[in-house]
């Protein structure tokens, strides 16, 4: 098999420039003024209605000369109300813009391509061997493919759709999806059998069974996701919407009732003027939570975008938010906590056996063993004992493969019968041949297991030569990752097929909180169920088909992109980088989404305190001059006070767009510490900040003679 790229991987298009994004978003902001779209966001819809209403008031005042308030004042209020709506739309358009650019490049990868489909009655196994069988293939457009069809794909061709490799092995360029230019191996059977439409074969050939109808593939899901086209509101967003809508209603009542209150006050005191409708609308817009209302959608879109940036495809926003709540993380040991597979790290001879003899026998037994463990024995023999690889054919040796019955593998030559395998299997083997297992070997076996290794015993005929120590290599830096997860309140549980002694040793070395040894698919599922029954939210990462039931049961299930189709379908997220510690980032993004929402809501409501002190005295000072005492800021005039509040209210949306798109910084800290910090910054900050800002705007308005 050759891994030479047949064509250079298509580079991902560069991110569009900020200027282009901004320009596109500005246009989109105006287009979004359509009331049918605005009504999805009740808070901003109220602002739009208020803007339209003040516009009418202006037209009326300008036409009759005796309207609700001086026309110039109404015009300025009205203009800034329109800006408020536009700024909110702009924020949303900015967030969507980034996703759109990405979707466009993905869409290019999805264009219809010709596909070679096998006829239903074709002999599939012959396709690879027999060029003549391939002549009977039928060429169709990828759009015509249906689930269950079988395709033939060769080097240089693009995969027309998602599928599962049923025969062959090939190098595939998946850069169109993952952004990673190094080719990956896809082969039938095992956990690397899933292929994605839009990727390109770099070598060899594959026979692929189609796993998704057109439009339902992975790429389509990804495009929908980044475009936000099918974005439905998450439960959390809906709950926040309820809160924002109720705040809007209560402020609507509080301002609407001010009109009769004001009329009554004027009648009673016999002085001043009834508050104008313009001022009431201005007050309403200032009080309702426009800051969060205007940015809510942008926060959600930006959060999903951050997921895509992290190369994670989530099936729903709900899954992303649930990630923030996870408190237990189940990790498959192999490939996650440890490097790939176990490696031979030492050869421990039986007393009286020369180390080189053991090495020679171990190497011979492993030469034809293509498992990673087997290869690592050959490597160790070469590095430590200077033994070069030999060809079995030349030795006249016959390879004895591993079977579940014997649980040993090895070689038979004319004179020798070499075996390696688990201690008890080899014990039975040598006893059957009339030999005995020396007690010293038992001690070695025990010593290796206790240290977290896996012992393989090597026997030549009835003589036990020694023990191969296989060890898991714990990934560098993983311990620190787990410590960080612990600070975030997430417990890590390692899942492994190893025996409890080995598992405990590795768990201790990696720093996980708990482990499940000798795990079967049923045991994994049962563990998740019992954790959930205790009220935990469980996340799991996995890649194999045997992980699928557990993935389906977990609250947050991240499947590796290299994994099987079954695993990907069972999970609610796919990590394109196939990096199991990605969950840390996913949790962070989930939390960040919620924190940003909460922080801006708090900020928005806290802002209202200052606005009251600005607008209430301005609105009623003519009726009750004493209320001027509430004008803490000593603003220029009632008119400039109202305008300053409205302008601040509009500008703060623009000011907070970066926070909404980037998200509030997440720290690994206890909940109480996070809460105090965010309350201090966004709660107290939200109360204080508007005062100087409104005063500044008022000064500018007054000095410049605009009011």
């Amino acid at each position, binding site marked *: 098999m050759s891994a030479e790229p047949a064509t250079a991987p298509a580079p991902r298009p560069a991110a569009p420039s900020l200027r282009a994004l901004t320009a596109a978003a500005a246009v989109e902001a105006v287009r979004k003024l359509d009331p049918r779209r605005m009504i999805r966001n009740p808070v901003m819809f109220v602002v739009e209605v208020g803007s339209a209403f003040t516009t009418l008031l202006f037209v009326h005042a300008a036409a009759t000369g005796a309207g609700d308030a001086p026309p110039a004042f109404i015009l300025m209020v009205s203009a800034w109300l329109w800006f408020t709506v536009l700024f909110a739309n702009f924020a949303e358009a900015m967030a969507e813009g980034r996703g759109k650019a990405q979707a466009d490049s993905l869409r290019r990868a999805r264009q219809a391509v010709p596909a070679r489909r096998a006829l239903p009655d074709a002999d599939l196994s012959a396709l690879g061997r027999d060029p003549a069988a391939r002549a009977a293939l039928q060429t169709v457009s990828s759009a015509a493919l249906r689930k269950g069809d079988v395709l033939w794909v060769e080097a240089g061709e693009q995969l027309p759709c998602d599928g599962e490799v049923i025969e062959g092995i090939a190098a595939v360029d998946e850069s169109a999806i993952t952004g990673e230019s190094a080719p990956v191996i896809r082969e039938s059977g095992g956990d690397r059998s899933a292929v994605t439409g839009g990727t390109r074969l770099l070598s060899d050939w594959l026979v692929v069974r189609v796993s998704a109808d057109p439009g339902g593939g992975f790429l389509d899901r990804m495009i929908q996701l980044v475009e936000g086209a099918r974005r439905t509101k998450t439960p959390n967003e809906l709950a926040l919407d309820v809160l924002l809508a109720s705040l809007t*209603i209560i402020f609507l009542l509080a301002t609407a009732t001010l009109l009769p209150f004001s009329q009554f006050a004027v009648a009673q005191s016999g002085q001043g003027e009834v508050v104008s409708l313009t001022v009431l609308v201005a007050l309403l817009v200032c009080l309702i939570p426009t800051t969060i209302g205007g940015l809510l959608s942008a926060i959600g879109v930006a959060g999903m975008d951050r997921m895509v940036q992290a190369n994670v495809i989530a099936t729903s926003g709900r899954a992303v938010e649930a990630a923030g709540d996870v408190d237990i993380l189940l990790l498959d040991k192999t490939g996650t906590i440890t490097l790939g597979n176990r490696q031979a790290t030492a050869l421990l001879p039986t007393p009286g056996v020369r180390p080189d003899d053991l090495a020679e026998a171990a190497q011979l037994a492993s030469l034809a063993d293509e498992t990673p463990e087997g290869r690592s024995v050959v490597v160790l023999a070469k590095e430590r004992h200077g033994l070069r690889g030999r060809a079995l054919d030349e030795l006249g040796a016959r390879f004895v493969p591993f079977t579940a019955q014997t649980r040993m593998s090895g070689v038979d030559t004319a004179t020798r019968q070499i075996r390696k395998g688990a201690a008890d299997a080899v014990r039975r083997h040598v006893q059957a041949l009339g030999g005995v297992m020396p007690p010293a070997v038992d001690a070695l076996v025990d010593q290796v297991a206790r240290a977290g290794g896996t012992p393989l015993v090597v026997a030549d005929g009835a003589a036990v030569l020694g023990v191969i120590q296989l060890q898991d290599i714990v990934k560098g830096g993983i311990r620190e990752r787990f410590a960080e997860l612990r600070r975030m309140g997430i417990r890590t549980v390692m899942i492994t097929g190893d025996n409890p002694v080995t598992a405990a040793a590795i768990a201790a070395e990696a720093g996980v909180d708990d482990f499940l040894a000798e795990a079967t698919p049923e045991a994994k599922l049962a563990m998740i169920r019992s954790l959930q029954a205790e009220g935990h*939210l469980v996340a799991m990462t996995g890649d194999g088909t045997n992980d699928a039931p557990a993935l389906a049961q977990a609250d947050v299930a991240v499947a590796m992109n290299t994994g099987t189709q079954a695993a990907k379908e069972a999970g609610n997220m796919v990590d394109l980088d196939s990096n199991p510690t990605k969950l840390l980032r996913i949790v962070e993004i989930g939390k960040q989404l919620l924190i940003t929402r909460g922080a801006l809501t708090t900020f928005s*409501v806290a802002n209202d305190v200052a606005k009251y002190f600005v607008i209430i005295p301005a609105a*009623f000072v003519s009726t*009750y001059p004493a209320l001027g005492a509430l004008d803490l800021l000593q603003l220029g005039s009632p008119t400039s006070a109202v305008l300053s509040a409205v302008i601040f209210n509009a500008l703060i949306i623009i000011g907070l767009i970066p926070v909404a798109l980037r998200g509030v910084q997440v720290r690994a800290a206890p*909940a109480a510490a996070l*809460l105090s910090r965010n309350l201090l910054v966004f709660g107290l900050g939200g109360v204080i900040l508007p005062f100087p800002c409104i005063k500044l705007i008022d000064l500018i308005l007054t000095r410049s003679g605009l009011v």
Partner: protein
Amino acid sequence: MTALDLLSVALTLGLTLALALPVAGLLTAALSDDPPPWARALRTFDQGLLRRLGIDPDEDMGWARYAGSLVVFNLLGALFVYGVQRLQGALPFNPAGLGPVDPFVAWNTAISFASNTNWQAYGGETTMSDLTQGLALTSQNFLSAASGLAVLGALGRGMRRSDGRRLGNYWADTLRLTLWVLLPLSGALALLLVAGGVVSTLAGPLAHTLLEDDAGTRTLARGAAAAQVAIKQLGTNGGGFFNVNSAHPLENPSPWTNLLQLISILLLPMAQCLSFGALLGDRRQGWALLGAMTALFLPVLALTLWAEAGLPPALAALGPDAVAIDAPMGNLEGKELRFGVAQSGLWAVATTAASNGSVNAMHDSFTALGGLGPMWLMQLGEVVFGGVGVGLSGAVLYAALAAFLAGLMVGRGPELYGKALLPRDMKLVVIALLLPSATVLMGTALSVLRPEATGALANPGPHGFSELLYAWSSAGNNNGSAFGGLTASGPFLAVGLGIAMAIGRWGVIIPTLALAGAFAQKRRQAPGPGTLDTHTPLFAGLVAATILLMGALTFLPALALGPAAEHLSTGPEVSHVR
């Protein structure tokens, strides 16, 4: 305000808290899923009684059935009160020979007592016969309070349970609360009050000749007041036997009876918090809620005491001579000399906090700032202690709101006491919190537009506006406290305030029970290091801030046109010249 005054206030509150501990135990024993053995024995008795009445005491009710039973029972109570009032002329125990109550006032009173508001659009001794007071009104004092406490039980169970069980049985709860909590407590209190000189007789009014030669005779109204006064205070009812309520010398004759009544005003409202914690299985939660409430209560109390310790502006304007005499006494207008400023101020704040509408001084005569505190406590939704049962459940609704925001801010899916807060839950929370505020604002707005309401005002300007705002705040939040001044017996206000009371009661209880029902079906999430604890001072502070901010934001404009405008217009500040 002397140091002794402040000491008396502190001692009263301390004593109440000390007594609230055993009372909370009693309440918990009545509502808990796991009652102590003696309570178990009493339950056998209750259950037998209910079975005899054809009610299955073991039926585990879903929220709709629980709420339905409650509403039907309360409405039947209202109908009964209405009927007795209308027919009292033909019924016995009417020594004063009073005729039927005006239909509008009767409607108002029926809703008022069934809803635990006890707003009184009538003068007790001149309108209601002994039968009406003793049978109709007093029975609702018990039953409406028991209904409120039943809501506490249902909410506690909803929060605690996650094993498929539902909210419990309304009838069993109400019977148990009435028989084993309210009756013994009010019986004991009534005896103490009688010993303290509160009148209790069925002999009817007493005619007596005045000492001055030409003054003729006068009639002294009497009645079986002590029993009604006891439950009016314990059940956060507040409906006085006499028109001037506990300012009347026969209803509250001495500082001793005043102390007893003050304690009983806050007793169950404080105990309900602690009992809720016990029902949840985590007493710290109860203390946290009590702490949040106290954090709001004390500043308002301080403001009111400070404002009332000064002289009213009109008196201060008279100059140093008047000040020299009266300054140490503070603002005594509308207050009883036997209680003084401190005990009257404490009473005003305690009763408006606890949804107990009784008065021992006229709030209308408080200074602008002194009257602002009590009004605002009502506008917060009666959750600073609040009415029995419902005050706590209102505080839990605010806690849900705080937990929602706090959950977001720590990056967790929001949850309260281990149960997730989903969109439907938030809907119920905001409906329950929104309805009373909306009622108050709209009712007040409607009133200022109606001449029959503005004509009922005793004062012009912002003070008149305050009278209306106070009345609607009191009705919409089921307090029952009256500012005074306003004549509320006209058809418009009698009917309108009656509607407000109904919305303020059942418009809150129904969504609260729906929420409890939803919680009962939820899985309880395990607490972990990432969970935000709700028993900490931090969270209690956030709950208090949420209550404060919601209350302030909703009513600030209206308050600006009432008490704030009045306070700022009538002088720089209350005079504290010594």
